């Protein structure tokens, strides 16, 4: 079964083709390619959330580059939530109606399910069940994954996402965007132990996260320091250590609580080396194994949507003749695929 996947829940327009026999056949992000004129790539600088003008040309180009046509598709999967309603409706509208016009089934995919299943696109995919830490600019959550559609939210951020904390702290330190790599770079010159940031919400039980306080702590620490480059490097290091340590504490609790031995790290923040190293140490201590998808499938992409949609369509699930998107959509409401 060959599935076209469409992701348009926030900033990125991502398109992919996944085949249940051949695996991932093609995938692309609007922001990373040059769209050719013949496919409608006429506007050089489209606004980041202008999915309307990006999606159809991107689908056409990806099919052409893969030597495929619309007739080769057996189903269409699109992100139907959670996310920006205006952005979601574009993918849902195009995906649902294109499937209808082709006489093939369509399936509405939950964006976070896509992320949770992204490691399944790798050669060394984790077996179920596992614990997943999803940390990106927009999300920070721990999820127990028993199987496709069987998710239990163990905890999430009550305010800022981890990636957002990186971006804002970087901005406060006068660094560039995205904040993660910028902070990691100057943190290499940092003096260990000069500053100590709090580990938010670790001194009480639970798997909730809170990162907005770290930003304020960075502001105040910077104001009290000389504000020189060394102080900034020291603050960056202390911040990075605090985030990695906080996540390690929560992941350890999640593994203890669930008794599971597989930990998946996903989302853009998983590119952070200090975090990866810290979680690798944790996994080793607990006799567990750490998995992460390749970097391009950690951030928003169409491949994970095509994969998740393929699993659901293969199980006979599909969306009725309705174009529906949901800004809010609890993970627990998904139906299991058995």
């Amino acid at each position, binding site marked *: 079964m060959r599935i076209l996947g469409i992701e348009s829940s926030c900033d990125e327009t991502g398109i992919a083709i996944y085949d249940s026999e051949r695996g991932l056949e093609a995938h692309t992000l609007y922001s990373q390619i040059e769209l050719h004129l013949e496919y409608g790539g006429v506007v050089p600088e489209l606004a980041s959330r202008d999915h309307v003008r990006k999606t159809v040309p991107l689908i056409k180009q990806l099919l052409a580059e893969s030597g495929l046509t619309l007739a080769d598709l057996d189903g269409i999967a699109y992100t139907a939530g959670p996310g920006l309603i205006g952005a979601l409706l574009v993918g849902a509208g195009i995906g649902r109606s294109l499937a209808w016009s082709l006489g093939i089934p369509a399936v509405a995919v939950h964006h976070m399910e896509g992320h949770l299943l992204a490691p399944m696109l790798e050669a060394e995919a984790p077996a179920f069940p596992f614990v997943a830490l999803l940390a990106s600019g927009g999300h920070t959550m721990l999820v127990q994954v028993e199987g496709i559609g069987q998710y239990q939210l163990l905890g999430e951020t009550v305010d800022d*996402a981890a990636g957002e904390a990186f971006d804002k702290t970087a901005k*406060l330190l006068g660094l560039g965007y995205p904040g993660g790599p910028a902070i990691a770079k100057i943190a290499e010159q940092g003096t260990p132990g000069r500053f100590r940031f709090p580990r938010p919400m670790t001194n009480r039980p639970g798997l909730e996260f809170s990162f907005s306080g770290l930003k304020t702590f960075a502001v105040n620490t910077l104001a009290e320091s000389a504000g020189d480059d060394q102080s900034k490097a020291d603050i960056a290091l202390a911040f990075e250590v605090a985030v990695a340590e906080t996540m390690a504490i929560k992941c350890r609790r999640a593994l203890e609580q669930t008794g599971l031995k597989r930990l998946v790290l996903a989302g853009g923040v998983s590119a952070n080396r200090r975090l990866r190293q810290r979680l690798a140490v944790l996994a080793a201590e607990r006799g567990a194994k750490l998995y992460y998808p390749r970097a391009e499938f950690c951030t928003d992409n169409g491949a994970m949507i095509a994969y998740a949609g393929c699993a659901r369509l293969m199980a006979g699930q599909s969306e009725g003749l309705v174009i529906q998107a949901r800004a809010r959509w609890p993970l627990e409401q998904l139906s299991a695929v058995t």
Partner: protein
Amino acid sequence: MVLLSVRDDMAMRALGARLAGACLPGAIIYLVGELGAGKSTLARGFLRALGHEGSVRSPTYTLVEPYELPAGQIYHLDLYRLADPEELEFLGLRDWLTDNAILLVEWPQRGAGVLPAADVIVTIAYDGTARHVTVMAVSEKGRQIAVALAE
């Protein structure tokens, strides 16, 4: 215009709650201040006071977080990541502008020209670890809110 000194997080949330108590349906409130000034903290107090019980997630990445509360529909916006005010159209701004919906807007400068005018502008300035807050009315509705807030 109302001038206030806010000592810490808790006081900022309390101010948000007071503002919620004084707020009127359909009000558009701009929240202005640097990163870490406490805009989201004030919004948190505002939403809690109107009956929201769950967590108040940052709208920085989602750009908008909608809330359906007994007091009505509230949209918490953060336009920090907006590259162009016209993007507000892609986000569905027109659907939010009903007679009764309250808009709390962080980084309203990024939406200039497309975002509707404010009724109230709340400005938060640093003073060490404390904050100076100015609540300025810029419409008749805003004036009523400011008067209620000062009481």
